[in-house]
Protein backbone atom coordinates (compact mmCIF):
# COMPACT_ATOMS: atom_id res chain seq x y z
CA UNK A 1 0.00 0.00 0.00
CA UNK A 2 1.08 3.60 -0.27
CA UNK A 3 0.63 6.61 1.94
CA UNK A 4 -1.30 9.52 0.42
CA UNK A 5 -2.53 12.96 1.47
CA UNK A 6 -5.92 13.86 -0.01
CA UNK A 7 -5.25 17.31 -1.49
CA UNK A 8 -8.97 18.06 -1.57
CA UNK A 9 -9.17 17.74 2.22
CA UNK A 10 -5.77 18.89 3.53
CA UNK A 11 -5.71 22.46 4.85
CA UNK A 12 -1.93 22.63 5.31
CA UNK A 13 -1.88 22.88 9.12
CA UNK A 14 1.33 20.80 9.39
CA UNK A 15 0.17 18.92 12.50
CA UNK A 16 1.25 15.69 10.78
CA UNK A 17 4.84 16.98 10.65
CA UNK A 18 4.90 16.98 14.45
CA UNK A 19 4.00 13.38 15.22
CA UNK A 20 5.58 10.97 12.73
CA UNK A 21 8.43 9.01 14.37
CA UNK A 22 10.08 8.67 10.91
CA UNK A 23 9.63 12.37 10.05
CA UNK A 24 7.98 11.42 6.78
CA UNK A 25 5.99 14.68 6.63
CA UNK A 26 7.90 17.84 5.75
CA UNK A 27 6.29 21.29 5.51
CA UNK A 28 5.42 21.92 1.84
CA UNK A 29 6.94 24.69 -0.24
CA UNK A 30 4.41 25.82 -2.81
CA UNK A 31 0.64 26.18 -2.81
CA UNK A 32 -1.50 23.77 -4.84
CA UNK A 33 -4.35 24.95 -7.09
CA UNK A 34 -6.56 25.46 -4.02
CA UNK A 35 -3.92 27.72 -2.47
CA UNK A 36 -3.03 25.16 0.19
CA UNK A 37 0.59 24.31 1.02
CA UNK A 38 0.27 20.55 1.42
CA UNK A 39 3.15 18.81 3.28
CA UNK A 40 5.69 16.86 1.23
CA UNK A 41 6.29 13.18 1.88
CA UNK A 42 9.88 12.09 2.46
CA UNK A 43 10.16 8.43 1.39
CA UNK A 44 6.65 7.52 2.60
CA UNK A 45 7.31 3.83 1.91
CA UNK A 46 9.14 3.82 5.25
CA UNK A 47 5.80 3.97 7.08
CA UNK A 48 5.22 0.46 8.48
CA UNK A 49 1.62 0.60 7.31
CA UNK A 50 2.71 0.48 3.68
CA UNK A 51 4.12 -3.00 4.15
CA UNK A 52 2.28 -4.40 7.13
CA UNK A 53 -1.23 -2.99 7.28
CA UNK A 54 -2.73 -5.67 5.08
CA UNK A 55 -0.74 -8.41 6.80
CA UNK A 56 -1.77 -7.37 10.32
CA UNK A 57 -5.31 -6.44 9.33
CA UNK A 58 -5.14 -3.18 11.27
CA UNK A 59 -3.48 0.21 11.20
CA UNK A 60 -0.11 0.37 12.94
CA UNK A 61 1.06 3.56 14.66
CA UNK A 62 -1.48 5.78 12.89
CA UNK A 63 -0.48 8.94 14.76
CA UNK A 64 -0.58 11.09 11.64
CA UNK A 65 -4.00 9.83 10.58
CA UNK A 66 -5.48 10.39 14.04
CA UNK A 67 -4.10 13.89 14.57
CA UNK A 68 -4.92 15.10 11.03
CA UNK A 69 -7.93 17.30 11.79
CA UNK A 70 -9.05 17.12 8.18
CA UNK A 71 -9.16 13.36 7.69
CA UNK A 72 -6.75 13.77 4.77
CA UNK A 73 -4.29 10.91 5.44
CA UNK A 74 -4.84 7.33 4.29
CA UNK A 75 -3.16 4.30 2.76
CA UNK A 76 -4.38 3.12 -0.62
CA UNK A 77 -3.68 0.09 -2.78
CA UNK A 78 -1.29 0.63 -5.69
CA UNK A 79 -2.91 0.55 -9.11
CA UNK A 80 -2.36 -2.66 -11.08
CA UNK A 81 1.11 -2.49 -12.64
CA UNK A 82 2.15 0.50 -10.53
CA UNK A 83 5.69 0.19 -9.15
CA UNK A 84 5.81 -0.59 -5.43
CA UNK A 85 8.55 0.97 -3.34
CA UNK A 86 9.69 -0.91 -0.28
CA UNK A 87 11.82 0.46 2.53
CA UNK A 88 12.51 -0.90 5.97
CA UNK A 89 13.83 1.40 8.64
CA UNK A 90 14.89 0.40 12.13
Amino acid at each position, binding site marked *: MKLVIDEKRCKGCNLCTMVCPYKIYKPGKKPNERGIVVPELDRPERCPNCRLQALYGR*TLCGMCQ*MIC*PDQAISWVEEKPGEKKKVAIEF
Partner: protein
Amino acid sequence: MTFSDWLRADRLPHIFCAGCGNGTVINCTLNAVDQAGLEKEETVFVSGIGCSSRAPGYIVTDSLHTTHGRALAFATGIKMANPALSVVVFTGDGDLAAIGGNHFIHACRRNIDLTVVCMNNMIYGMTGGQGSPTTPRMALSTTTPYGSAEPAFDLCELAIAAGANYVSRWTSYHVKELTRAILAGLRTPGLSFIEAMVQCPTNFGRRNRYRQPLDQVEYFKTHGMLVEKVRRLQEEGQEIPPETIVLGELARRNRPAMGVKT
Protein backbone atom coordinates in the same frame (compact mmCIF):
# COMPACT_ATOMS: atom_id res chain seq x y z
CA MET B 1 -14.49 -1.25 10.01
CA THR B 2 -12.34 1.76 10.79
CA PHE B 3 -13.16 5.22 12.09
CA SER B 4 -13.45 6.60 8.57
CA ASP B 5 -16.47 4.38 7.88
CA TRP B 6 -18.38 6.53 10.38
CA LEU B 7 -17.63 9.74 8.46
CA ARG B 8 -19.95 11.33 5.91
CA ALA B 9 -17.32 11.61 3.21
CA ASP B 10 -19.68 13.66 1.02
CA ARG B 11 -19.68 16.40 3.69
CA LEU B 12 -15.89 16.70 3.88
CA PRO B 13 -13.83 18.84 4.02
CA HIS B 14 -15.54 20.24 7.10
CA ILE B 15 -15.89 23.93 7.95
CA PHE B 16 -13.30 24.00 10.74
CA CYS B 17 -10.34 26.35 10.24
CA ALA B 18 -6.94 24.92 9.27
CA GLY B 19 -5.36 23.24 12.27
CA CYS B 20 -8.50 23.39 14.46
CA GLY B 21 -8.34 20.64 17.09
CA ASN B 22 -12.01 19.70 16.74
CA GLY B 23 -11.30 17.46 13.73
CA THR B 24 -8.77 15.46 15.75
CA VAL B 25 -11.34 14.89 18.51
CA ILE B 26 -13.85 13.65 15.94
CA ASN B 27 -11.25 11.11 14.73
CA CYS B 28 -10.54 9.88 18.26
CA THR B 29 -14.22 9.65 19.18
CA LEU B 30 -15.10 7.70 16.05
CA ASN B 31 -12.12 5.43 16.61
CA ALA B 32 -13.36 4.70 20.14
CA VAL B 33 -16.94 4.14 18.98
CA ASP B 34 -15.61 1.76 16.33
CA GLN B 35 -13.43 -0.13 18.80
CA ALA B 36 -16.37 -0.41 21.20
CA GLY B 37 -18.16 -2.33 18.45
CA LEU B 38 -21.22 -0.06 18.45
CA GLU B 39 -23.76 -0.37 15.63
CA LYS B 40 -24.48 2.73 13.54
CA GLU B 41 -28.23 2.21 13.87
CA GLU B 42 -28.01 2.14 17.67
CA THR B 43 -25.74 5.15 18.15
CA VAL B 44 -26.84 8.78 18.32
CA PHE B 45 -24.63 11.87 18.40
CA VAL B 46 -26.04 14.99 20.05
CA SER B 47 -24.63 18.53 20.19
CA GLY B 48 -25.57 22.11 21.02
CA ILE B 49 -24.27 25.17 19.16
CA GLY B 50 -20.67 26.17 18.46
CA CYS B 51 -17.87 25.10 16.15
CA SER B 52 -17.41 21.94 18.24
CA SER B 53 -21.13 21.25 18.07
CA ARG B 54 -21.00 20.94 14.28
CA ALA B 55 -19.28 17.58 14.65
CA PRO B 56 -22.38 15.30 14.45
CA GLY B 57 -23.10 16.73 10.98
CA TYR B 58 -20.07 14.85 9.65
CA ILE B 59 -21.07 11.47 11.07
CA VAL B 60 -23.29 8.92 9.34
CA THR B 61 -25.49 8.00 12.32
CA ASP B 62 -28.69 9.69 13.45
CA SER B 63 -27.90 12.91 15.27
CA LEU B 64 -29.43 15.98 16.88
CA HIS B 65 -27.88 19.43 16.46
CA THR B 66 -29.86 21.25 19.15
CA THR B 67 -30.02 24.72 20.69
CA HIS B 68 -27.12 26.42 22.45
CA GLY B 69 -26.38 24.81 25.80
CA ARG B 70 -29.14 22.22 25.60
CA ALA B 71 -27.36 19.18 24.15
CA LEU B 72 -27.47 17.36 27.50
CA ALA B 73 -31.18 18.06 27.96
CA PHE B 74 -31.97 16.56 24.54
CA ALA B 75 -29.57 13.66 25.14
CA THR B 76 -31.28 12.96 28.47
CA GLY B 77 -34.59 12.75 26.66
CA ILE B 78 -33.23 10.33 24.06
CA LYS B 79 -31.57 8.10 26.62
CA MET B 80 -34.56 7.96 28.99
CA ALA B 81 -36.97 7.26 26.12
CA ASN B 82 -34.80 4.52 24.66
CA PRO B 83 -31.99 3.24 26.91
CA ALA B 84 -30.97 0.73 24.21
CA LEU B 85 -29.30 3.57 22.26
CA SER B 86 -25.69 4.60 22.84
CA VAL B 87 -25.69 8.38 23.11
CA VAL B 88 -22.55 10.47 22.59
CA VAL B 89 -22.65 14.22 23.21
CA PHE B 90 -20.24 16.66 21.55
CA THR B 91 -20.09 20.01 23.24
CA GLY B 92 -17.89 23.10 23.64
CA ASP B 93 -16.74 24.89 26.76
CA GLY B 94 -19.24 27.69 26.20
CA ASP B 95 -22.05 25.32 25.29
CA LEU B 96 -21.42 23.07 28.28
CA ALA B 97 -20.27 25.37 31.05
CA ALA B 98 -21.69 28.83 30.30
CA ILE B 99 -25.22 28.73 28.89
CA GLY B 100 -25.52 24.97 29.57
CA GLY B 101 -23.91 24.95 33.02
CA ASN B 102 -27.00 23.82 34.90
CA HIS B 103 -27.75 21.01 32.45
CA PHE B 104 -24.16 19.87 32.93
CA ILE B 105 -24.23 19.56 36.72
CA HIS B 106 -27.68 17.99 36.76
CA ALA B 107 -26.86 15.43 34.06
CA CYS B 108 -23.83 14.48 36.22
CA ARG B 109 -25.98 14.40 39.37
CA ARG B 110 -28.50 12.12 37.68
CA ASN B 111 -25.56 10.16 36.30
CA ILE B 112 -27.36 9.48 33.04
CA ASP B 113 -25.66 6.87 30.87
CA LEU B 114 -24.18 9.29 28.32
CA THR B 115 -20.66 9.80 26.97
CA VAL B 116 -19.95 13.52 26.92
CA VAL B 117 -16.94 14.75 24.93
CA CYS B 118 -16.19 18.43 25.54
CA MET B 119 -13.87 20.14 23.06
CA ASN B 120 -12.47 22.79 25.38
CA ASN B 121 -10.76 25.49 23.34
CA MET B 122 -11.06 27.97 26.22
CA ILE B 123 -12.99 30.44 24.02
CA TYR B 124 -16.26 31.02 22.15
CA GLY B 125 -14.82 30.04 18.79
CA MET B 126 -17.87 30.31 16.55
CA THR B 127 -18.93 33.83 17.55
CA GLY B 128 -15.51 35.41 17.14
CA GLY B 129 -13.48 34.77 20.27
CA GLN B 130 -15.32 35.99 23.37
CA GLY B 131 -14.07 34.78 26.74
CA SER B 132 -15.71 31.64 28.14
CA PRO B 133 -15.88 30.16 31.67
CA THR B 134 -12.70 28.22 30.89
CA THR B 135 -10.65 31.11 29.47
CA PRO B 136 -7.50 31.07 31.62
CA ARG B 137 -6.57 34.02 33.83
CA MET B 138 -4.74 36.72 31.86
CA ALA B 139 -5.64 35.16 28.47
CA LEU B 140 -6.69 37.62 25.77
CA SER B 141 -10.05 37.41 24.04
CA THR B 142 -12.35 39.96 22.41
CA THR B 143 -14.18 40.45 25.74
CA THR B 144 -11.00 40.44 27.84
CA PRO B 145 -8.70 42.70 25.81
CA TYR B 146 -6.44 43.33 28.83
CA GLY B 147 -6.37 39.69 29.91
CA SER B 148 -9.09 37.76 31.72
CA ALA B 149 -9.34 38.81 35.35
CA GLU B 150 -11.57 35.89 36.34
CA PRO B 151 -10.58 32.45 37.58
CA ALA B 152 -11.56 29.67 35.15
CA PHE B 153 -13.73 26.60 35.73
CA ASP B 154 -12.05 23.20 35.98
CA LEU B 155 -14.65 21.20 34.06
CA CYS B 156 -13.42 17.82 35.33
CA GLU B 157 -13.55 18.91 38.98
CA LEU B 158 -17.06 20.16 38.31
CA ALA B 159 -18.13 16.81 36.81
CA ILE B 160 -16.60 14.89 39.72
CA ALA B 161 -18.24 17.09 42.35
CA ALA B 162 -21.59 16.80 40.59
CA GLY B 163 -21.44 13.00 40.45
CA ALA B 164 -20.25 11.70 37.05
CA ASN B 165 -19.11 8.07 37.10
CA TYR B 166 -16.13 8.48 34.75
CA VAL B 167 -14.01 11.60 34.22
CA SER B 168 -10.79 12.10 32.30
CA ARG B 169 -8.87 14.83 30.52
CA TRP B 170 -6.57 14.67 27.50
CA THR B 171 -5.63 16.99 24.65
CA SER B 172 -5.62 16.98 20.87
CA TYR B 173 -1.94 16.01 21.01
CA HIS B 174 -2.62 12.83 23.02
CA VAL B 175 -4.64 11.03 20.34
CA LYS B 176 -4.09 7.47 21.57
CA GLU B 177 -4.81 8.30 25.20
CA LEU B 178 -7.87 10.35 24.25
CA THR B 179 -9.22 7.46 22.18
CA ARG B 180 -8.68 5.06 25.08
CA ALA B 181 -10.40 7.43 27.51
CA ILE B 182 -13.47 7.79 25.28
CA LEU B 183 -13.58 4.00 24.89
CA ALA B 184 -13.46 3.62 28.70
CA GLY B 185 -16.21 6.23 28.93
CA LEU B 186 -18.39 4.33 26.46
CA ARG B 187 -17.94 1.18 28.52
CA THR B 188 -18.67 2.78 31.91
CA PRO B 189 -22.37 2.93 32.86
CA GLY B 190 -23.53 6.37 34.03
CA LEU B 191 -22.29 9.74 32.85
CA SER B 192 -18.80 9.69 31.37
CA PHE B 193 -17.16 13.05 30.92
CA ILE B 194 -14.08 13.37 28.72
CA GLU B 195 -12.52 16.80 28.41
CA ALA B 196 -10.40 17.23 25.28
CA MET B 197 -8.29 20.38 25.36
CA VAL B 198 -8.12 21.66 21.77
CA GLN B 199 -6.40 24.44 19.89
CA CYS B 200 -8.49 27.18 18.28
CA PRO B 201 -5.80 28.82 16.17
CA THR B 202 -8.19 31.43 14.78
CA ASN B 203 -9.74 32.87 17.92
CA PHE B 204 -7.59 31.75 20.84
CA GLY B 205 -4.13 30.91 19.53
CA ARG B 206 -3.71 33.99 17.38
CA ARG B 207 -4.36 36.30 20.35
CA ASN B 208 -2.38 34.28 22.87
CA ARG B 209 1.17 33.83 21.59
CA TYR B 210 0.46 30.70 19.54
CA ARG B 211 1.09 31.94 16.03
CA GLN B 212 0.65 28.56 14.34
CA PRO B 213 -1.69 25.64 15.20
CA LEU B 214 1.47 23.65 15.96
CA ASP B 215 2.51 26.08 18.69
CA GLN B 216 -0.55 25.44 20.86
CA VAL B 217 -0.32 21.67 20.33
CA GLU B 218 3.34 21.91 21.37
CA TYR B 219 2.13 23.65 24.53
CA PHE B 220 -0.28 20.76 25.23
CA LYS B 221 2.62 18.37 24.73
CA THR B 222 5.04 20.15 27.04
CA HIS B 223 2.62 21.27 29.77
CA GLY B 224 0.52 18.13 30.18
CA MET B 225 1.28 16.15 33.35
CA LEU B 226 -0.25 12.83 34.38
CA VAL B 227 -2.51 13.08 37.40
CA GLU B 228 -0.48 10.41 39.21
CA LYS B 229 2.63 12.56 38.94
CA VAL B 230 0.76 15.69 40.02
CA ARG B 231 -0.51 13.89 43.14
CA ARG B 232 2.97 12.56 43.94
CA LEU B 233 4.52 16.01 43.64
CA GLN B 234 1.79 17.41 45.86
CA GLU B 235 2.39 14.72 48.49
CA GLU B 236 6.10 15.48 48.45
CA GLY B 237 5.25 19.14 48.94
CA GLN B 238 6.82 20.08 45.60
CA GLU B 239 5.58 22.85 43.41
CA ILE B 240 3.49 22.12 40.31
CA PRO B 241 4.89 24.17 37.39
CA PRO B 242 2.59 27.03 36.32
CA GLU B 243 0.10 26.37 33.49
CA THR B 244 0.27 22.60 33.99
CA ILE B 245 -2.63 20.68 32.42
CA VAL B 246 -3.57 17.70 34.59
CA LEU B 247 -4.08 14.67 32.35
CA GLY B 248 -5.43 11.17 32.78
CA GLU B 249 -8.28 9.38 34.47
CA LEU B 250 -9.57 11.60 37.26
CA ALA B 251 -12.56 9.55 38.43
CA ARG B 252 -14.01 6.11 37.88
CA ARG B 253 -16.69 4.94 40.28
CA ASN B 254 -19.99 3.20 40.50
CA ARG B 255 -22.69 5.61 41.70
CA PRO B 256 -26.30 4.70 40.89
CA ALA B 257 -26.97 5.61 37.24
CA MET B 258 -30.04 6.29 35.07
CA GLY B 259 -30.88 5.14 31.56
CA VAL B 260 -28.42 2.23 31.59
CA LYS B 261 -28.91 -0.46 28.91
CA THR B 262 -30.51 -3.56 30.40
